[in-house]
């Protein structure tokens, strides 16, 4: 009986390594949700015959896991959302540089790490959405002017705890300096009729309900609502078109430093940037493809062309902690 018990315990504890020993298999850690990546992995496996094993989780927790596993990590590729998280992964040394002509050609310079440790794979535009019945687009101009007194009691925001807003404020700091950025954010907060929302969707729904008239969200959240109900009274406004342009963020990936199948991992990363994968990658979540030869989803394309901020997204990470402190100081919850 004791022998059987021992065998059982060994079997349970050995679960981690049994399956990871196939040479021709890739292991991915992903902070991008399963339903947004699985179709791509399935397609890659169908095309190349290489099985892909993955685990999804929160970016911070996956990064700690990579660090703790060190040189023994089974992971070959790390996929995450938000440039700040990618920046942090590179800083922590869990990613390795990849020199690839394909990636250079497919991913614009400002959407990948200057040292090539990670590459953006889809672009999210964080823009202004307004209630068509109450706001004329000519009243809107850029992010900063949402702090104007005419928006008093009319501006809704998502919580500062969400990394998208942290990146937005980080880009303001990078562009205008900390003192100006702090004034801007404080003026936003003064305009809020209610506490910030826990999600972009909740903020959009509150605009529909009439709690406020404008909000700042990633376009795909707007797209999802529109798909459910085309009649919603909301429209997109592209801010700052005469200035730096719309705030951009990415989801992206990098090859892990201790990948045991580096060449295969690079190939998968390259494939994800090709037209074949990009169309699915972006349209699954109504995002924009990084690869400019690929067309957006028809719904996304219907919102029109816009000028995106050309700042390298890697800079957001650097200013993120500063942005959080700034938002704490002005009472942005």
């Amino acid at each position, binding site marked *: 009986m004791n022998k059987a018990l021992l065998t059982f315990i060994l079997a349970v504890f050995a679960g981690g390594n049994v399956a990871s020993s196939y040479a021709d298999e890739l292991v991915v850690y992903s902070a991008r949700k399963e339903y947004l990546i699985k179709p791509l992995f399935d397609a890659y496996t169908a095309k190349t015959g290489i099985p892909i094993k993955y685990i999804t989780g929160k970016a911070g*927790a996956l990064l700690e896991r990579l660090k703790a596993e060190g040189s023994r990590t089974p992971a070959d590729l790390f996929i995450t959302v938000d440039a700040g998280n990618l920046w942090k992964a590179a800083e922590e040394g869990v990613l390795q540089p990849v020199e690839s002509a394909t990636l250079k050609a497919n991913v614009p310079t400002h959407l990948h790490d200057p040292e090539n440790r990670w590459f953006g794979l889809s672009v999210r535009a964080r823009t202004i959405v307004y209630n068509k019945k109450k706001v004329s687009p000519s009243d809107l101009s850029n992010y900063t002017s949402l702090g104007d007194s005419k928006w008093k009691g009319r501006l809704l925001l998502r919580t500062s705890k969400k990394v998208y807003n942290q990146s937005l404020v980080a880009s303001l700091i990078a562009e205008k300096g900390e003192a100006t950025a702090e004034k801007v954010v404080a003026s936003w907060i003064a305009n809020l009729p209610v506490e910030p929302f826990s999600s972009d969707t909740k903020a959009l729904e509150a605009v529909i309900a009439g709690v406020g008239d404008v909000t700042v969200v990633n376009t795909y959240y707007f797209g999802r609502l529109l798909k459910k109900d085309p009649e919603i009274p909301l429209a997109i406004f592209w801010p700052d078109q005469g200035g730096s342009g719309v705030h951009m963020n990415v989801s992206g990936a990098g090859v892990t430093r201790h990948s045991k199948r580096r060449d295969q991992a690079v190939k998968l990363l390259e494939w994800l940037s090709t037209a074949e994968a990009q169309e699915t990658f972006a349209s699954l979540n109504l995002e924009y493809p990084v690869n400019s030869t690929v067309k957006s989803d028809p719904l996304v394309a219907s919102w029109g062309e816009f000028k995106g901020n050309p700042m390298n997204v890697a800079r957001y990470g650097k200013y993120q902690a500063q942005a959080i402190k700034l938002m704490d100081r002005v009472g942005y919850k």
Partner: protein
Amino acid sequence: MLIAIVVATPVLVVLGSFLAPEADIWQHLADNVLGGLILNTLKLLFCVIPLTAVLGISMGWLTAGCEYPGRRFFSWALVLPFAIPPYVFAFVYLGIFDFSGPVQGVIRDVFPAIGFIDIRNTAGVSLILSLAFYPYVYLMSRSAFLSQGPSTMEAARTLGQSPVGAFFRVALPMARPWVAAGLLLVAMETLADFGAVAIFNYDTFTTAIYKAWFGMFSLNAALQLSSILVVFVLTVLVLEQRFRQRLRFHETGAVSAPDRRLKLTGVSKWLAFTASLTLFLLAFALPCSQLGLWAWNSLNVDALRHLEHALNTLLLGMVTAVVTTAIAIVIAYSKSSNPGPVMRWASRLATLGYALPGTVLAVGVFIPAAWLDNRLLNTLGELTGIKAEIFIQGSLGLLIVAYAIRFMAAGFGSVDSAMQRITPSIVEAARSMGTRGTALLKRIYLPMTRTGVFTAAIFVLVDVMKEMPITLMMRPFNWDTLAVKIFEYTSEGEWELAALPAVGLILTGLLPVLLLTQRSESIK
């Protein structure tokens, strides 16, 4: 003792974070947000604890000690909310009562003057958490009242106490270890909750922990903040035990006679019925109907995959329940057979995992495990020349260890308070007849604590099924659970898609919950 050390490891890792100071982040937090966060957390505690106490004890007493219309139904129906995780409560209630929800829509149409009502405040969050957590107190106090037996109450009545007086002077004080254990679980859950408060964008102490880690990229500062939670809970534990130390809770008479319940009549009968019904509707019927509606709307081909997730969920829960309860019995038994400061402290440390936010605890388990793994494999590699890959990490075993650490408190509280019902004289009598060691455990302790052990196992089982952050970080490949699926959708704000796995989780959770009530009913 060894077990207690293993179980306490993550707590020690957390405390060890102070070796590397993070003065900058601390300064910032202290200057700007910490005061408000601590205040918010205390406000929540001061609302949730009394509210769960009132709900849990009154319902526990009504269904265990009284007779009124629907009692049989409510005695198990009021346990059902236990299967609903707090974060599911939060998003369902926000969906119904928020600005854009149907309720406020109707109110605005009928009375436009009322305007917008923000439910995202202390009152709203407290109510949600109380609905989610009262079953702990209900189950514990109910099991106390059931095991009290009628003799003590009768003695009080013959001494001239009214039924109400007898309840407050005798039944309630006698149930104190149970009620205290239940409330302690509620307090720890409230302190560690992140999911529900995040959905309400209500900032508590856990918010600071996650902000320091995920936002400012300092795991160390996050661990240090967590250690404050640990110290706080430790203080409460010590205080509670101090107050209780001189009291005894043994039961003398036989535990039986189910029909000796106090028959409620007239108004009180219907008051009891209305109160039970209201609670049942708010805590179960309403959220479930809304979830059912959403789930129906979002039904798709992917739905079948949730069966696999449900199976994973159930399996993990059952294995962990067995392991954790077994360990809890060992700890409670050694504590009661060697009463001394060493075991007392060991048992306290062993239950602290419950007060840590799940992700933090996961890191506390993962870091030592990875270290051990690397050591082990390096040695193995040097000895045999085999280049082995990771061994312990990412295995089911480690996940179960992490669960056991996290939920030891849930199992231990119930087992420990059940053991307090065993009078020293029974043990002495058994000893004098030559029964010792494991035989004593088998013949005396286990049979006498059956209800408590059973409650403990179900607590752990259901808690594991609802658990999200640890599963997310430590599950092996292809081992998604329902809670993980719920997280994937809710973190994207896709409430309706999250409803399907949520309904699956509740249905899966109902199984053990119903089993629990059946069992405790048949014992009684």
